[in-house]
């Protein structure tokens, strides 16, 4: 029989537990169980008096193990571990039985609840005697930070950290930072010029001594763990030497080849083959689009090289992709979002009906530096529409596409209505919405402003958009067919232009990115935060944070808040220098490993390495996150998962089944 002395403490939690569970009975009964030295019940175990009770018993009665039967360990495990530690007992020699959330709160049956409380308490007692003292693992934090994504969230995070004196690597896939915000004309509800507020921040990033800006680059691999990540970054060849280029733009002017700009201008305009996505781009160096470059295609041209005024010449057709290895302590992902492909809803006619636009196309159109110099015109490039319908919830709030609400569309659809009123005062504007969602400072007021401006609001989800007229008034028009649910009648609204407000959706490669960074991603492809309420920028993987729309639909202010929040979390870790990590880790007995290699591809963190020379596998403790998958897989039973060993769980099973298990006797 085990020599351990266990103290058991059953909590009333006021009446939360005691109302349903007979706590006195549970404590008395627990006192009779093997190894139990003392069993008590108390009103509030988590109170300072309750904790003192434990400390006192450890000191006076020489307890070697402690069990508290109270609430969820997610609530107070830390509290009671602290009490044990203060009394000189290793905190891992403690176990908690959850008789509140899992018991007293889920049933009114007092008998069953008391029985279950005994089971859970007994399981903890049976388990705790097998516990071993464990020490937290100290990890040093590399003060450099990697930020992936140069939209407004990434820019904010980078500036926050860099201003606080920390070095940041900002990696952006496109040739310039700025993200979607750089494409917008105005921001709601204040109607600030998007470029005017964003550009200074982009410039700050470009010039900051603490920021290494890596645009036209992508993270390809990630190794390591909190405090010590190694990121492999591919810096794609720009064919422009950044060391000498002054960004004068003569090469762009002289380049003879033009292509449709599918990225920044969303197909609404063209760009040169050597290009900057937009005039305020940061960095200012252009990039050669190799796929369309006449020189790369046919072996001659080199107009850009010919006209480049720098000495030596900035154009370098021989440039190769560079592979960089970055050593960082923390990572912030701010990879942003994409727009829903509206062609997936054929009844809205996008692609077939030429005057159906997407929101981003309209943004570019109304932008003064956009393809139409800010004029709102039909696809012919000249006719201003006399009537415009704006369709909300395209792909949002729809189980056939995305079930969630994209949150920003109501507001930007209102902004569009305003811009149409502003630029074409006589135009009729229809906003077709399911519900008007305008929570936010100044947002509802903006809605009222639009009501006053005379926008026609139709409450109803648009059923279809057609060019087939039924009556003469519809001829030559786009007809928006919708039920006006406020009057309960189907309406056919003839208009010249339709703007679709598509859902915000996760980047198409978000699943791969989440695997690359070894963290979670939800069904819709948005990255999963550690806790939706209380820990919205951390992820389940320590040292990796998320900010902005890669976590879910968000507008600019929210993205900024998240960028700053993630930066604050990282700065906190950098300040501490060293963090202690939970010692719940796996370990392979090197003498007993047969080298069968079953466990080798179990680990999502690549924490298991195989030593070819000794034919054994080993767990790299710092990489291990303690899930125990390898422990369950090991056919030889020689991988132990600290704090969740087979012994401990087997004892817990026996303990939890105390009332139904067969007698432990030999025949």
């Amino acid at each position: 029989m085990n020599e351990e002395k266990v103290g058991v403490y059953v909590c009333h939690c006021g009446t939360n537990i005691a109302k349903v569970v007979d706590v006195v009975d549970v404590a008395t009964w627990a006192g009779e169980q093997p190894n139990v030295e003392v069993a008590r019940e108390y009103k509030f175990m988590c109170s300072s008096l309750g904790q003192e009770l434990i400390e006192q018993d450890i000191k006076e009665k020489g307890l070697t193990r402690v069990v508290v039967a109270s609430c969820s360990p997610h609530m107070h495990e830390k509290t009671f571990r602290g009490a044990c530690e203060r009394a000189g007992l290793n905190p891992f020699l403690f176990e908690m039985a959850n008789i509140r959330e899992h018991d007293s709160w889920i049933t009114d049956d007092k008998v069953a609840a008391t029985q279950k409380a005994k089971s859970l308490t007994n399981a903890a007692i049976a388990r705790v005697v097998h516990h071993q003292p464990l020490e937290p693992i100290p990890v040093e934090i590399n003060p450099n930070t990697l930020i992936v994504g140069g939209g407004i969230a990434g820019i904010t995070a980078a500036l926050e950290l860099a201003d606080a004196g920390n070095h940041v690597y900002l990696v952006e896939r496109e040739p310039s930072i700025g993200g979607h915000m750089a494409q917008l004309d105005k921001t709601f509800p204040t109607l600030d010029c998007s470029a005017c507020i964003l550009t200074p921040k982009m410039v700050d990033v470009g010039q900051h001594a603490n920021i290494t800006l890596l645009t036209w680059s992508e993270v390809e691999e990630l190794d390591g763990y909190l405090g010590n990540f190694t990121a492999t970054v591919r810096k794609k060849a720009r064919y422009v030497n950044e060391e000498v280029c002054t960004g004068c733009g003569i090469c762009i002017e002289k380049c003879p080849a033009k292509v449709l700009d599918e990225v920044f201008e969303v197909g609404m305009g063209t760009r040169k083959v050597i290009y900057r996505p937009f005039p305020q781009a940061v960095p200012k160096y252009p990039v050669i689009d190799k796929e369309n470059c006449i020189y790369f295609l046919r072996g001659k041209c080199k107009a850009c090289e010919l006209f480049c005024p720098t000495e030596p010449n900035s154009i370098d057709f021989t440039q190769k992709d560079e592979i960089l290895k970055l050593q960082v302590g923390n990572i912030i992902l701010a990879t942003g979002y994409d727009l829903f492909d509206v062609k997936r809803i054929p009844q809205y006619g996008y692609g077939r009906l030429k005057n159906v636009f997407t929101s981003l196309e309209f943004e570019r159109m109304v932008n003064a530096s956009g393809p139409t110099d800010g004029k709102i015109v039909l696809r012919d490039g000249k006719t201003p529409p006399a009537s415009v319908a704006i369709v909300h919830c395209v792909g949002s709030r729809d189980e056939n596409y995305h079930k969630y609400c994209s949150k920003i569309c109501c507001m930007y659809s209102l902004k569009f209505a305003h811009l149409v009123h502003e630029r074409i005062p006589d135009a009729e504007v229809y906003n077709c919405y399911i519900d008007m969602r305008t929570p936010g400072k100044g947002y509802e007021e903006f809605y009222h402003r639009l009501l006053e401006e005379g926008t026609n609001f139709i409450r109803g989800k648009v059923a279809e958009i057609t060019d087939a007229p039924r009556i003469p008034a519809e001829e030559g028009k786009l007809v928006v067919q919708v039920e006006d649910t406020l009057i309960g009648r189907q309406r056919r609204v003839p208009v010249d232009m339709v703007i679709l407000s598509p859902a915000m959706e996760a980047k198409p490669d978000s699943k791969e990115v989440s695997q690359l960074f070894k963290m979670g991603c939800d069904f819709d492809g948005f990255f999963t935060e550690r806790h939706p309420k209380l820990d919205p920028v951390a992820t389940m993987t320590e040292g990796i944070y998320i900010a902005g729309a890669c976590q879910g639909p968000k507008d600019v202010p929210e993205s900024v808040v998240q960028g700053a929040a993630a930066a604050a979390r990282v700065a906190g870790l950098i300040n501490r220098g060293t963090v202690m990590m939970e010692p719940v880790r796996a370990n392979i007995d090197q003498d007993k490993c047969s080298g069968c290699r079953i466990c080798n591809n179990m680990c999502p963190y690549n924490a298991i390495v195989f030593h070819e020379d000794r034919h054994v596998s080993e767990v790299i403790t710092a990489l291990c996150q303690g899930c125990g998958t390898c422990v369950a897989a090991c056919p030889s039973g020689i991988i132990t998962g600290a704090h969740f060993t087979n012994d401990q769980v087997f004892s817990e099973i026996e303990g939890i089944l105390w009332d139904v298990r067969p007698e432990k006797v030999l025949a």
Partner: protein
Amino acid sequence: MSDKPKLAMYWSASCGGCEISVLNIHEHILTVDEVFDVAFFPCIADFKVHHVESYPDGYIDVCLWNGAVRNSEGEHMAHLLRQKSKFMVAYGSCAYEGCIPALSNLTSKEATFNTVYFDNPSIDNPNKVLPTESVQVTEGELTLPTFWNTVKSLDQVIDVDYYLPGCPPEPPQIWAVLQVIVGALLEGKPLPPKGSLVGHSGVAVCEECPLEKSEKTITKFFRPYEIVPEPGVCLLEQGIVCNGPATVGGCGALCPQVGMGCRGCYGPLPGVEDQGGKMLSAIASVIGAGEAGMDEHEIERQIEAVVDTIVDPAGTFYRFSMAHSLLERAKVNGKGE
């Protein structure tokens, strides 16, 4: 008889291979003969039960028991020999953990009889005769032992001092164990603690297996006759179920070396409660189907497609350890009986 230590060996539900294995220790058998007097060993010497009954308690120094306990006769003999022996050794897989006979724990006694006496192409039993426990003949009553529903390992019937795994145990291991016993009996050297599993390597069979092993992802399993294994490569990686990783070594990895997956006869590694459960876990872990990010049902469907290629998982993973497994037997017709 001389005052040499007394050796006994008895068989219960087993194939007889264990007896042969004792004789298969080559010239060392002469040492055995030199050291021991045989007190009971039906396979090699003509002793009767009444001889054993006549011995005083503890007269036999070492009794090697092979075979699972399947019927009342086995149980009776186990108790008798326990009483007469100082050390009771569960010799071989049947005695240790049930072995092949215990596979009938997956079904009922009735079903077993049905297969053995009626439903088998090689059986000619037109009168549907079944063994009965008692039959009257002119000479008097003849009896047969009671046939149990469940096959048990030796330690489920009597107290066992040592376990020697293997089907059968391999000569070097037998000899090593005998040496320890002889050393203890003749020179007073210390014995391993009671209840020890002796005669094995302590590490899984893979340690002794020379085949090249790499990371495993299996998308289809083959039965041995369905595939010619590629030489030199881990059989499990080729989709041949090999229990090596979950089986304690000591055998020298004989089977995998000739292209036959380890059947698991040495039983689980010390500290593992259930060899089948562990092997199942390992095999399932490396199934190459179902990736995160796919539809939940699609994942399940893909995994099921691979699992479907594993024929008879219980029989495969518990080929030797059924009686000693956590569940010991199957529930048949709503119960065990």
